């Protein structure tokens, strides 16, 4: 992966931003990447990149809501488990 310590956030190109983005998201200890002060200058100068970051944050946030599900297996699953546990 790309080493963030080598990155000049203010002068990086869009291509460099693309290269470093997976690591930037993965290192998001300070919260939302769109609000990371290191990226403020770059994202202000590159609104499409800013929109991309916000969209990817939205996807990641919405994904958390999928953790809870109303779907459940059919009754035969428990019936099979019970049968196997009795043997």
């Amino acid at each position: 992966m790309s080493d963030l310590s080598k990155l000049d956030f203010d002068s990086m190109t869009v291509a460099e931003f693309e290269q470093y983005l997976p690591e930037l998201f993965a290192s998001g200890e300070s919260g939302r990447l769109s609000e990371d002060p290191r990226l403020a200058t770059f994202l202000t100068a590159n609104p499409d990149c800013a929109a991309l970051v916000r969209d990817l944050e939205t996807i990641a946030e919405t994904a958390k809501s999928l953790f809870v599900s109303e779907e459940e297996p059919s009754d035969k699953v428990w019936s099979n488990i019970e049968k196997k546990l009795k043997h």
Partner: protein
Amino acid sequence: MGLQGLQMQTKPNAGLFKRNPPIAGEAEAIERAKNGDPDAFSKLYSLHKRRVYTLCLRMLGNVSEAEDMTQEAFLHLFRKLGSFRGESAFSTWLHRLTVNLVLMHLRKKGLQLVSLEETINPSEEDAPKRDFGSRDTQLAGSVDRVTLERAVASLPPGYRMVFVLHDVEGFEHNEIATMLECSTGNSKSQLHKARLKLRELLRNPEQLPEVESSREVVQ
């Protein structure tokens, strides 16, 4: 136009604890089930069947296989329950057990769902387009969970696996790397590609297949 009004993005590990709070009666049921109480094990099944089944369904993309693996997961749980020491949330432990069973099942089937080659080099058609900076690829509004569910079901299997494990289940990259036998860098890269692909898919939600039918054809 980007999306507004979102919550802070937290690290998955923190999310795990928040998303796995103690369930009333669970600890007692675990201890009773360890001692062979069938009613207690039934209670554990009732408490966790939905999330285990949904995890299997998302990873496998097939209702029948998901039910079979749910059954296997709980039978495995019955055999392994004595080794649960409470060092992590029970549901976290059960989910890890389930993921490992599903991955073992996939490897036995010979499906290269999680191989490095497959996840690094998805087909050209499956890979996200490298045009993320262009304005016309941006989402136009908020994403609802039903639409996202359909989009996730449409992901290439390798992308879907990493996305479900990280963004939905809350596993960390190092845990995913261990489970999928890949590097943490690969896990981060595949997650990013999965999100980019989802962004593409979500731009045209009307073209997404329904969840049930999509799950049947995702394999």
